[in-house]
Structures are given as structure tokens and as C-alpha cells.
């Protein structure tokens, strides 16, 4: 069982701010258990609402249950005008698992210490993936709970409360087909949305913006991932360098011994720093981009739904005209047309609200994460790198009056490292 403490969660939760503030419904995932490929989340709810049977309760849930909840919400007609929070991605331990496998194969070529360090590093990576997936599932639930309309959804309540196993299993087969059709419909939607004539300026702008922004942010996410991976590779290299330098200095009996020892220690310290730089970048930058990529997709889905409603409305108009021409079934056609118009209007109104608040949310989240990332980069460079390297010789101070003294000291440290 892996438990995640509050401070860590606070750090992880920065992709979406202002969640879980409403005391009437507080949700969190305090525990999660990982067995093989399956992660079992413990969803814990604290509520003052009377619609629930108990004020506090916990249920075990699997990833598939979250997907079921998301899909049900998407398919609910009433929520067509809302941005449904994106479904959490499937827990993916493939990366660290592969690396662990490779490490096992290469065990013979490295020293015991090196192997232990690499293993530790991998375990930390595994843990990071684990923490991330918990966070992402938690944020999904918290966005639902903080949404005025979605938090009252019946299925959501079932999800939180129902203490039996949600029979999602038989949905799997249906899901597969459902998913396939969904994708086909989506691509048809993309054609539709680009072809439809927009009457409202706001939505016209949003459409252009979101389509463009989505492709750019998708690209950025992929590139950020690659960048983070390179950082991790470098941190791993430092481990090997430190270990080899250690072996070298152990066998050295000349004046070089001390140099090698110190360098080995330095690289050991540096690899921890590089690792932290990589993981911070991952959390603040890559994760931020990834999350908002999915969120923008959800916003786009809203636009699709509205576009479909508009198409329906236009079709109903055509049908009404045809009925009037034929003087047949006019009241039904009129009713149908009214119905479509109402639906479309409702969608437009709530859609506008949702998209505006989405904008604000996004800007706030970006601001928070970018500030934190910059601060962390500075902190790592100042405290960790500089501190460690200048432990070997003093830092050149920026103030000029002590320049000479420090320079002298530095020269002596240079020579007398031995």
C-alpha cells in the first residue's frame, strides 16, 4: 500500500487550482494499491449533503470505473453544454518497467553499488508515475465535485457511494465498440465543425482559437516529454560516471586518488540534482501541458456538441419548411424545430459560460506552474549545483570588494586540491 501525504498532494495538484474548497463535498484519494497492471484507488468522501447516506465513506475503485463515469457524463444530454472534465489517462508503468528489465539484463556489467543506485533511481521513477496517476484521478473527481451542476449527478453519487464492485466489466465489450464509433463520429464532427457557418462571434473566435491551440499544445507536450527524458538519461549517466570514478580511485595509489574521489562524490550529488530537475520539469511543465491538452479536447467536444445541435436545428428548419410546403405534419415539425432551437440556445448559453471560466482557469494554472518551475530551476542551480561544485573550490563572489581575497583563496584551492 502506498500512501501519499498531504504536502505531496498539494504539490502535485497544481495543474488545476481552486479545487476541493467546498466543504459540502470533499473528495480525495488517500491510498492506492498497485498490483501488476491494475491500480486500485481508495476514493474517500466527506460530505455534509443530505443526498448521501453517510457523512464520510470510502470505496475502492479501478481505472475503468473512472472511465465509465466519464463516458456516462458525456452521454448525458443535459450536460451537453458543459465542459466535461477529461478522463484520467490509463496508468502507464511501461516506461519504468522496461528500464527495470534492461537494468536486470545489464546487472553483470556494473558494480553492486552502481546497480543499487540505478535500482533506487528506477524505483523513484516508478513511484513518480504512480503518484502522478493518483493525482490525475483525484483531480478528475475534484473537478466534478466543484462543478455546480455535475456534482449533483446521480451517477457521480453512485460512483462515490456504491460499496459494491461497479459492474463495469461487461461494459468492456460494449466500450470497445462504443469507442470505435465514438472516434468515427468525432472525425465527422471535425468536418462538421469546420464546415458550419457560425452566427455567434464569440463561438467563431473560440473555435478558431481552440482548434489551433490544441494542435500546438499537443506538439509542445510531446517535445517537453522528450526533453524531460533526456534530462533523466543524463542523471543516469552521472550514476555510472560516479561509480566508475569510485572504482578508479579505489585502485589508485598515486596523487590522483583524491581528485578522483572528490569528482566521484560530486557526480553522485549532481545526479540527484539532475534527477530532481527532470522530475520538476515533468510535473510543472510537461504535466501542465498534457493536462490542458486534454482539457482543451474536452472544450472542443463541447463545441462539437453545439455544432451538432446547430446542425440539428438547421435540419429541423428545413424539415419545417418542407412540411409547410407539403402542408403535412406541420405541428410536429414546428415542435421539433422549437425543441432544437431551445436545445441549441441552452447549449450556447452554458457553453459560453463554461468556455469563459475555462479561459480564466487555464491562465491561472499556467501562471502558477510557470512561476513554480522558474523558482525551482533557480533553486536547483543555486543550492544544489553551485553549492556542490563550490564545495570543491569557493565561488567567485559578485561583490567586488572581496574579489581579491576570494580569488587568492581560489588559486590556493586550485593548487592544493591534493
Amino acid at each position, binding site marked *: 500500500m502506498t500512501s501519499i501525504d498531504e504536502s505531496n498532494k498539494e504539490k502535485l495538484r497544481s495543474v488545476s487550482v481552486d479545487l476541493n474548497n467546498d466543504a459540502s463535498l470533499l473528495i480525495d484519494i488517500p491510498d492506492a494499491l498497485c498490483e501488476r497492471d491494475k491500480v486500485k484507488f481508495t476514493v474517500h468522501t466527506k460530505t455534509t449533503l443530505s443526498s448521501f447516506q453517510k457523512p464520510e465513506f470510502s470505496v475502492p475503485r479501478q481505472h475503468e470505473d473512472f472511465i465509465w463515469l466519464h463516458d456516462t457524463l458525456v452521454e448525458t444530454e443535459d450536460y451537453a453544454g458543459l465542459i466535461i472534465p477529461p478522463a484520467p489517462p490509463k496508468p502507464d508503468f511501461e516506461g519504468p518497467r522496461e528500464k527495470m528489465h534492461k537494468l536486470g539484463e545489464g546487472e553483470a556489467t556494473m558494480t553492486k553499488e552502481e546497480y543499487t543506485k540505478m535500482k533506487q533511481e528506477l524505483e523513484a521513477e516508478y513511484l513518480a508515475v504512480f503518484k502522478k496517476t493518483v493525482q490525475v484521478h483525484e483531480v478528475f473527481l475534484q473537478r466534478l465535485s466543484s462543478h455546480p451542476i455535475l456534482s449533483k449527478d446521480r451517477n457521480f453519487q453512485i460512483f462515490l457511494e456504491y460499496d459494491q464492485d461497479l459492474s463495469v466489466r461487461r461494459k468492456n465489450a460494449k466500450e470497445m465498440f462504443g469507442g470505435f464509433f465514438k472516434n468515427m463520429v468525432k472525425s465527422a464532427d471535425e468536418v462538421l465543425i469546420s464546415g458550419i457557418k457560425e452566427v455567434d462571434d464569440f463561438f467563431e473566435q473560440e473555435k478558431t482559437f481552440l482548434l489551433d491551440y490544441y494542435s500546438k499544445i499537443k506538439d509542445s507536450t510531446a517535445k517537453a516529454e522528450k526533453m524531460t527524458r533526456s534530462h533523466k538519461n543524463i542523471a543516469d549517466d552521472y550514476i555510472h560516471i560516479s561509480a566508475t570514478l569510485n572504482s578508479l580511485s579505489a585502485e589508485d595509489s598515486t596523487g590522483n586518488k583524491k581528485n578522483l574521489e572528490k569528482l566521484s562524490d560530486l557526480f553522485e550529488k549532481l545526479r540527484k540534482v539532475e534527477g530532481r530537475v527532470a522530475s520538476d520539469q515533468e510535473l510543472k511543465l510537461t504535466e501542465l501541458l498534457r493536462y490542458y491538452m486534454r482539457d482543451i479536447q474536452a472544450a472542443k467536444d463541447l463545441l462539437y456538441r453545439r455544432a451538432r445541435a446547430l446542425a440539428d436545428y438547421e435540419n429541423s428548419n428545413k424539415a419545417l419548411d418542407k412540411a409547410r410546403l407539403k402542408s403535412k405534419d406541420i405541428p410536429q415539425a414546428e415542435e421539433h424545430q422549437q425543441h432544437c432551437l431551445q436545445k441549441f440556445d441552452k447549449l450556447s448559453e452554458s457553453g459560453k459560460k463554461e468556455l469563459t471560466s475555462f479561459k480564466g482557469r487555464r491562465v491561472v494554472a499556467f*501562471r502558477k506552474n510557470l512561476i513554480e518551475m522558474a523558482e525551482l530551476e*533557480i533553486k536547483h542551480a543555486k543550492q544544489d549545483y553551485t553549492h556542490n*561544485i563550490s564545495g570543491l573550490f569557493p565561488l567567485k563572489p559578485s561583490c567586488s570588494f572581496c574579489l581579491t581575497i576570494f580569488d587568492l583563496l581560489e588559486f590556493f584551492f586550485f593548487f592544493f586540491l*591534493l
Partner: protein
Amino acid sequence: MAASSDRNPPPFPAAEDPEPGLVDPADGDSDEGEDIFVSKTNPVSVSRGVSQPDRGAEDPPDLFSEEEEASSTTAKSNGVHSDDDSDLFAEAHMELNTDKPGSSAKKELSASSGPRSTSTSTQSPAAMQPTSLEQLEEEEAKDSFDVDVAITNPEKVGDGMNAYVAYKVSTRTSLTMFRSKTFSVRRRFSDFLGLYEKLSVKQSLHGCIIPLPPEKSVVGMTKVKVGMDDPSSVEFVERRRAALERYLQRVVCHPSLLQDADVREFLERDDLPRALNTQALSGAGFLKMINKASDAVNKMTIKMNESDTWFEDKFQEVEAEEQQLRKLHAVVDSLVNHRKDLCGNTAVFAKSMAMLGNSEDNTALSRALSQLAEVEDKMEQLHQEQAASDFFIFAELLSDYIRLLGAVRGCFDQRMRAWQRWQEAQSTLQKKREAEAKLLWANKPEKLQQAKEDITEWESRVTQYERDFDRIGMTVRKEVLRFEKEKAKDFKSQIMKYLEAMLQSQQRLIKFWEAFLPEAKAIA
């Protein structure tokens, strides 16, 4: 050995006495030290090169007494000892004291009275065995910075497949054995190889660790010949230039090699005859390969009867170290590649982020994202510089020493061959004696004379070879100690350079992110 091209040798003022007690980086190892304390260090180091006949006339007994004193005080500062920062100033003081008498010893070696002092220094070990090692160590601690070489201006000469790159070799020296104080010549890569070939077969240099030139590279050179101006051939030429410079610097720092006429000719002579036997497909090339093979076989068949375990222990140490260095080099190579990847990925990410910033409709956020893209661009540059530093400072240091350790092993092999020759001569002598005895018994006086002459000849050969063997043993010992000293110094200075570069890049990183922070905070 700090083989940097921007190292300034001390200028050439009138001799002055250094103030005693002045804390002086008498090791003379750092550029900065020499620049700042220039007036103080000069007389000490420069006077080495000047042939001051009055000082040269100083008697050898003085030499030894000074050296004795020097060795006892510096014995502590050489070799492995506990590194206590509080000892800094104590050590500095000591080195200053010993520098003066020691410099006269060094000066003796390089001045015109060279042969005499070398013979005395080689005879002395027999006389004072216990202190000789310390003495040798002490001698090696005095560096000669009288010759400084730099290799610059690689230029392509000619066209097509006959093209080659010519480098400008500039020498700055205060030694009088050279015609002038500064001069330069143009040399091509095969000239360097030729120099190495000439040095490696010299009998007088047997046992010495002769530095190795960089390896031939058909692929690299072909690209340059064909005239491609891409970054990889630029990097290749730069890598080769730096490697040649380090090679030449090591050659001139070696006291015996500096004396060599071929080395001087290489540095001075304007037109050097082309070294044709360095071509891979020449007759000389094939001969070399065959010799190498036969040597390998010899090594395997004859096991040396080692009287001195020092050699065996050292040899094993060298082999183990070479292996570890190879491993380290492989890892550092991987680091260089990963950092280059990081460069590429960062650049690509920066572009992507710039595009994202353009699409963003919130103006403050858009500006912040564009700024982020710029920061990442600067980071890419930092990563590139760091990768270059990783490679040119760290990786090349390792590959140089891997090859140098190979050369060290070669010296041990030479010693073994000398031993073999001696043993073979002894067995031949034995056979001749037996032949004489047979003749005596068979009573053939005419052949007896011949046999006696043979015996005398072989007796002298045996003595000669035994002396050679001892001499080589001595040389190898001295060389190995000198090499270890140089290696420690080299590693230290290169590591310092590497860490300084790393530190500087981190400082710049801090500045970049600190400039970005207000932009991020300005998002509304």
C-alpha cells in the same frame, strides 16, 4: 600537465631574487598564478633556461646536498597524503623554499652541462638507493615551462583527395638551444606521426614514455578533403587540432624528448621532408604490423624472471587502470550523446513553445510563453557548451590517458625485450664457452683462437646488454613516476577546468530563469 594553448610562459626580465616567505604558487601550474605573481616567479623559473655559466660551475656536491634538503621537505608534498585544507599555507611555504634549490637541479639538466648531470643522476641511485626514489620524485616536481607550443589556424591546402590540413605550430621559448624566442612553422598531420615514428625507434629513448599522437581517421579526413563544411567536419578538425596541441605540449614537457634533435627540427625547420612511412598502406606500415605481431608472440612465450616486484606490481596497476579508464570513457561518451540529444530536444521544444505563445489569446500569458521559448533557446546553447566541455575536456582527457597508459605498457615491454636480449646473449656466451671447452679437449689450436675471440666478444656483449637492461629499468622507473606526477596534475587541472565551465553555465542558467520569473508573475 596543463596543456592549454592560452598558457603564458613567464616573460624574460633581469634576474631578481624572489622575496622569501611570499606565498607563491611555486608549483607554477596555473596561468592565473603566473600572471598575478609574475614578477616574483620569474627569476625562479626563467633562470632555469638561461645558461648562467657561473651557476653552472657550481659543484655537484652542492646539488646533492640541496636536493637532499629539498627532498626531505618536499617528500611530504608529493604523493598521496591527507588532504587538510589547513595545511594549505604550510605547503605553499615549503614549495617556495624548495623551488630555489630544486630549480638549479633542473637547470643543470637542461643547460649545456646536460650530459654530466644526467650521468650523475643515474649513478646516484646506485649510491643512495633509499633516497633515490624521493629524489626522482623531487626532480620531476620541477616543471620546465621554458617551452610553450600552440597549434592554431587549421587550413585546408590543395583540393580533392590530395588535400590536407596544415596547422600552424607556434613555439615560445626562453631556452637558448633554439634559434629564436618565438617562431612558427606549418605542419601537417603526417608530420606529427612521422615525429612519433622517429622517436619511438630511438635507442637512446628506450624506456621513455613517448606521448602518442592522435589516431588516424580515414572517415574524418575524407569528409574534410571532399570539402564539406558541415559542423561534424568542423568539429573533427577542432578535435584533431586540440589533440595535436596536447600531444606536442606533452612532448616538449618531457625533459629527454626536448633534448632530441628531431623534436627541435620539428619545431624549427621550415620545410620538413614528408614522412611517407606513416601511410597506412606503405611498406613501413606492413613492417610495423608484422613487428607488433611478433612482439606479442614473444611476450607470451617468455616469462621474465623478475627480481624487482615493483615492475610487476606497477604493470598490473597500469593494466587495471587502463581498463577502468576505458569504461569511464564509454560512460562519458554516452553522457556527451545524451547531452547532445537534450540540446536538440530543447531547441525543438523552444520552437514549439514559441508557436504556442503565438496562438495564446491572453496577452500576458502569450508574452510569458514567448519568453519561456527564449529561455529554452538559451538553455539549448548552455547545453551545447556543456556538451562541448564534456567532450573536449573530460572525454578527450580520458582517451589521451588510455593511449598513454598503452605507451606505458610499451615501455615495460621494451624493458622485457632488453632483458630477453641479455638472457639470449648470456646463453650464447655459455654455448661459446662450451664450444671452447670442446675444442680444448679436441686439441685444435687454430680454432681455439677464434673461439677465445668469440668469447671475449660475447662477454662484452653480455655486459653491455646487462647495463642496457639496468639503464632501461632505471629509465622506466623514473618515467613512470614522472608520468604519474604529470597525470595527477593534468587530471587536476582538467577537472578544475571542467567544473569551472559547469559552474559558469549554472550561473548563466540562474540569470536566465531569474529574468523569466517576473514575466511569469506578470501573467494576469
